[in-house]
């Protein structure tokens, strides 16, 4: 039995997981073949192959970017350690930790945003310089969009990590390395924990 309509999930996956100009033509070809008697299994096989091909092409097209991102991410622990060292300096961060809630929360969030975006934007700037030297340059609008997108992604990931740390106390160490998790919860002990850090 060959139903008239192809599997809707497979069609949705084909539409949303295969970028590029061939998407429409490929979708039409698959539908044409399916209507001419191909099986559901064949349709699924073609869709999975199309997604795999699209993923492979995306990776191949952005191999330099992926390599650079992986290498830059390796520096994140070193960056964390550096920030932690600076953070322990009472003259720099002492006043922030001594603020009353909610100002301590706002300050901690702002600080984490600045620290995180500095690391990400430094990496991006370095990549743009390298990429610009290898191929063509980037337009200002494109750079601005990339910086804004990276900041949004960082905020979303940070919020997700924080939510995870609240839901799963065992994972607190993931984001508490900068000492924010305890300081941004209004009920939790915030700067009481700090003395053993910077005194």
């Amino acid at each position, binding site marked *: 039995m060959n139903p008239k309509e192809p599997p809707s999930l497979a069609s949705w996956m084909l539409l949303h997981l295969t970028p590029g100009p061939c998407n429409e*033509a490929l979708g039409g070809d698959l539908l*044409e073949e399916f209507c001419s008697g191909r099986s559901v299994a064949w349709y699924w096989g073609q869709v999975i192959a199309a997604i795999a091909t699209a993923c492979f092409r995306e990776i191949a097209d952005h191999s330099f970017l992926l390599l650079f991102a992986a290498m830059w991410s390796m520096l994140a622990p070193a960056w964390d350690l550096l920030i932690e060292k600076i953070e322990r300096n009472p003259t720099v961060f002492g006043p922030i930790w001594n603020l009353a809630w909610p100002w301590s929360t706002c300050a901690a969030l702002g600080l984490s945003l600045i620290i995180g975006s500095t690391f990400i934007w430094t990496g991006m700037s370095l990549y743009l310089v390298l990429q610009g030297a290898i191929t063509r340059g980037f337009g200002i609008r494109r750079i601005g969009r990339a910086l804004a997108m990276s900041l949004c992604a960082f905020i979303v990931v940070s919020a997700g990590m924080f939510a995870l740390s609240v839901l799963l106390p065992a994972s607190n160490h993931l984001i508490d390395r900068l000492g924010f998790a305890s300081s941004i919860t209004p009920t939790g002990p915030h700067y009481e924990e700090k003395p053993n850090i910077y005194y």
Partner: protein
Amino acid sequence: MNGRTYLGEFELMLLLTVIQLGEGAYGVPISRGLESHRGRVVSLSSVYAALERLEGKGLVVSNFGDPTPERGGKAKRYFRVTKDGLSQLNETRRLLTQLWQTLPQPKLERI
């Protein structure tokens, strides 16, 4: 090295199929043609990926036809081999023929 590149097996078969189909060379007949000659299932996405690679090299060009209701309102993408594509094909054929001719007859019979 003179910088000249030769076509791979799949690319060669694709270009020949596109030429054979002429005006009606789009995804479905191309993949069916390849399937019948190779004797195994060909994924349409790999056909498109290879054709786009060839298009990037300037060996084929493509254009979209009108959307049709039997294809869910999606247009067909027609492919055509360019002059560069034809000369690349001829060059590959010349090279392959030359290589075959260098083989002595007894060796050919054993193949």
